[in-house]
């Protein structure tokens, strides 16, 4: 069971986790990552605007979810990414995986969020309280984290 969703609205983490946990009686472990707009960095960040490429985004997220599903023998996999404007503390992304064993679920979640950061067509515009705004630069550490999953010894 794969569920991929791109939406403006907030998601309900408890409901998403409950749905994953009930996907099969064979589920022994579930892993979740939730990313939100980080504030308190002293830079006066007020909001993020998430732009995306409609159509391509859903395709690429589905491709990533399918890759995780077969690579880590998942029983369930949910990826939800919000678009539009989000303020400090607001949720941005939810990745949840369910598997028979904990290692598979934990690794699949790390794989999905690492790959999603640089492999799905999303872009972040930061707006600050003083009126400035700028597009977030891609980080080399994110490229490295995504590329590390190309090495199958990580499984």
């Amino acid at each position, binding site marked *: 069971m794969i569920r991929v969703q791109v939406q403006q609205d907030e998601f309900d983490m408890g409901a998403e986790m409950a749905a994953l946990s009930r996907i099969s009686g064979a589920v022994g472990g579930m892993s979740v990552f939730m990313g939100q707009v980080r504030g308190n960095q002293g830079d006066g960040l007020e909001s993020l605007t998430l*732009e995306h490429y409609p159509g*391509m985004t859903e*395709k690429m997220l589905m491709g990533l979810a399918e890759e995780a599903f077969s690579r880590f023998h998942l029983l369930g996999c949910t990826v939800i990414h919000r678009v539009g404007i989000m303020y400090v503390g607001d949720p941005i*992304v939810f990745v949840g995986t369910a598997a028979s064993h904990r290692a598979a679920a934990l690794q699949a979640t790390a794989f999905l969020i690492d790959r999603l950061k*640089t492999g799905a*067509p*999303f*872009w972040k515009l930061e707006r600050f309280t003083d009126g400035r705004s700028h597009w977030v*630069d891609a980080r080399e550490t994110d490229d490295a984290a995504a590329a590390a999953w190309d090495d199958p010894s990580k499984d």
Partner: protein
Amino acid sequence: MQGRVTILYFASLREQLGRECEDVSLTDGQVPVQTLVSDLRSRDKALDGVFAAMPRIRVAINQELASFQDTVKAGDEVAFFPPMTGG
């Protein structure tokens, strides 16, 4: 559609160009992305400046990531954008 491709721009690229899409005609039946880009840059000074200033522009053809050596043909949807920053 015959002989034409749709071009999309996203994020900082869209913002700096001041447009999010355009239709262009291909000089030949099918051309590599880099030829298409050269044509666009020679026709449009603003676009030339934006492409010159952003060395890491990515391309997708029909919503699949592609390289600048890949071929564009009539009816394709070609998108240019900066490195992705989701999550």
